[in-house]
């Protein structure tokens, strides 16, 4: 591995490559900031620009865009609750709350730092054990994926807050909305009512922009215009305590993200949700999640980054795209006359290791660029809301349009903006709805595939050790409110309640009879 790394560094570390990597990161951050335009679109749009470069330089720049876009998406999610990309939806939950409390700087900084750490760790893991994980991922057939999706649906329990039936209802609404369009299983066009636009389903990113950005904006107008946030400089920096609190969630997020990222098709969005779910279950501060807890920012961001790196495992080891962006990058390989496949490592070691090394370089540049910029970005919140909200509308509609160059997207944003506003007013939980939207189609696909594989065996296909373990996890998760409740009743003052009792006490008054 060391000699391979040397090959990589020799190939990647030319002044020209580092420069283009920097340009890529910068461009990627801009693209990521724009709602709707994610890393996949960014890479696809800029592939023609890179055609004049040598293959390695071009790939390095595209990798820079890829990483930059991921972080850019988080910036707007935290500052104005506008997720720039599907995988940063979850950052709006706690990141935005932190920003509203005047802690946008630390939120952005910890997000950058967490992403950096998890990227580094997952890259080392990627280089060391890619073939091992790739083979492991191959054993994950439809039944195993089905079990994972069931586990995913079960996290609705932890996302529901106190009213479980309401959380379930929102999750079901999400699943049903995702049913609209041509289904993967039998290719039937469902609930399209003759509208061709709906063939492709209700577009996810546009729904997110509507629910979160426009919904939150209308909510702010209702509350009476958010005051500009003038944070003291001291508040813009990370404290030692922040770092200490972020360590464990980063580790958990990295592991969750890496494992899910290995599986082709599971995607980074799911990883970010599962990481947040893990925090809700395991974190010592789990009660504070949703009110602006640093754990809720750093864990999903770490997971997203780890997952997007792990996405490259099937790509590099087997030549199979692990996610949307890696699929586009694979397309770029072809443009440069490189045939991705199982022999890529052997045939093009310089290219592969150069690319992996450039991931390192890209992440370092990203951190160097963004740590000092985090407080600067946070200053955006000083803009008076009277100017701020028109700008949010402009970026939302513009971003939505450019996802598919379609007016339909613009209308989806507006309609779901109203839905989001109503949900905010009624205090309905958003996360289960989003989870249902993400998992619904994946669940159905795995279900249909499993039913084909099952043939006459019926449920027998589900009886593999892997699926049983995952299903047991799911069962533990579903029943967790029960045993949690019993724990709470037997202990008069549970220790995790004590260190946060003050902030939470008034919020819980209504629920503790």
């Amino acid at each position, binding site marked *: 591995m060391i000699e391979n790394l040397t090959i990589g560094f020799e190939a990647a570390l030319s002044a020209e490559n580092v420069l283009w990597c920097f340009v890529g990161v910068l461009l990627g951050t*801009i*693209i990521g900031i*724009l709602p709707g*335009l994610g890393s996949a679109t960014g890479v696809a*749009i800029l592939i023609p620009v890179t055609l004049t470069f040598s293959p390695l330089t071009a790939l390095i720049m595209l990798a820079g865009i890829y990483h930059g876009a991921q972080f850019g998406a988080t910036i707007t999610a935290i500052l104005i609750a506008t997720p720039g990309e599907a995988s940063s939806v979850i950052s709006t939950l706690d990141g935005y709350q932190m920003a509203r409390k005047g802690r946008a700087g630390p939120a952005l900084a910890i997000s950058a730092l967490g992403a950096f750490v998890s990227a580094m760790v997952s890259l080392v893991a990627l280089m060391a054990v890619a073939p091992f994980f790739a083979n492991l991922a191959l054993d994950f057939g439809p039944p195993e994926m089905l079990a994972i999706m069931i586990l995913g649906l079960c996290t609705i329990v932890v996302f529901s*807050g*106190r*009213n*479980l*039936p*309401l*959380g*379930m*209802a929102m999750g*079901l*609404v999400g*699943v*049903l909305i995702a*049913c609209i369009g041509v289904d993967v*299983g*039998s290719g*039937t066009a*469902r*609930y399209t009512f003759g509208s061709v636009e709906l063939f492709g389903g209700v577009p996810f990113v546009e729904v997110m922009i509507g629910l979160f950005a426009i919904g939150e904006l*209308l909510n702010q*107008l*209702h509350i*009476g215009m958010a005051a500009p946030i003038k944070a003291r400089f001291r508040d813009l920096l990370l404290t030692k305590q922040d770092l200490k609190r972020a360590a464990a969630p980063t580790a958990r997020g990295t592991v969750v993200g890496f494992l899910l990222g290995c599986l082709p098709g599971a995607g980074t969005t799911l990883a970010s949700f599962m990481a947040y779910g893990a925090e809700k279950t395991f974190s010592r501060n789990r009660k504070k999640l949703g009110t602006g807890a640093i754990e809720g920012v750093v864990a999903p961001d770490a997971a997203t980054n780890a997952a997007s790196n792990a996405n490259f495992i099937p790509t590099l080891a087997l030549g199979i795209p692990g996610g949307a962006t890696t699929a586009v990058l694979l397309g770029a390989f072809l443009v440069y006359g490189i045939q991705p496949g199982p022999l890529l490592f052997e045939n093009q070691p310089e290219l592969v290791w150069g690319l992996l090394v450039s991931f390192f370089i890209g992440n370092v540049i990203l951190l160097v660029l963004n740590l000092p910029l985090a407080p600067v970005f946070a200053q955006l919140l000083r803009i008076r809301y*009277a*100017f701020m*909200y*028109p*700008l949010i*509308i*402009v970026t939302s*509609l*513009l971003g939505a*349009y*450019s996802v598919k*160059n379609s*007016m339909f997207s*613009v*209308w989806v944003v*507006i309609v779901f*903006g*109203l839905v989001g506003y*109503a949900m905010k*007013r*009624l*205090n*309905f939980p958003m996360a289960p709805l989003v989870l249902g939207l993400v998992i619904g189609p994946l669940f159905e696909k795995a*279900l*249909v595939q499993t*039913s*084909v594989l099952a043939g006459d065996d019926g449920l027998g296909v589900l009886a593999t050790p892997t699926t049983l373990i995952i299903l047991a996890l799911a069962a533990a998760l579903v029943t967790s*409110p029960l045993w949690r409740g019993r724990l709470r009743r037997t202990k008069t003052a549970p220790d995790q309640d004590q260190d946060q009792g003050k902030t939470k006490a008034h919020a*819980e008054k*209504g*629920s503790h*009879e």
Partner: protein
Amino acid sequence: MSTHPAPTAAPRRPVVIAYGVVTALGVAFCAGSFAYDWSNEDGTIGSAVLPRVAGFLLLLVGLWLVRQELRGGSVREGDGLVVEDEGHSPEEARRIRRKLITVVATMVVTALVIPILGLLLSLTLMTLFLTAVVEKQSLVRSLVVSAVTFAVAYLIFVALLRIPLPLGLLDPAVWSVL
């Protein structure tokens, strides 16, 4: 969950209506699923299964929620209506409602004029309208903000990313055929 004795409070109308809408959604999807096949020719799971099951479950959960609310309204975290006592006077509340309607209407109008004026111009005019007219900011400032918005959006979307934004009637292609 049902072991919790529900705190007594009058059912809140908006919440009941919202639960009703959710329930109706379940009914609609469940009923709609009968247009599709429960199983495919080869006996595998068909396209009606997920919407019918999920729709039916939503119907059940929705009814449960409605019942819960009618039984006295649960003031639990997670479903409480954000109550209207945020210190708004009736006059203020009316002003806020009017502004909300105006902003939504402005978005709708903007979306409607995009095919005519093009995307960037419509959005710029919308910014100007919202800042200058709705928010009553000074005209100079509003103009500057709108102009900067236009310039930045043009630079990023058109010059840098070359995304083909619609130009509406200003599209040279419309005039070139004349």
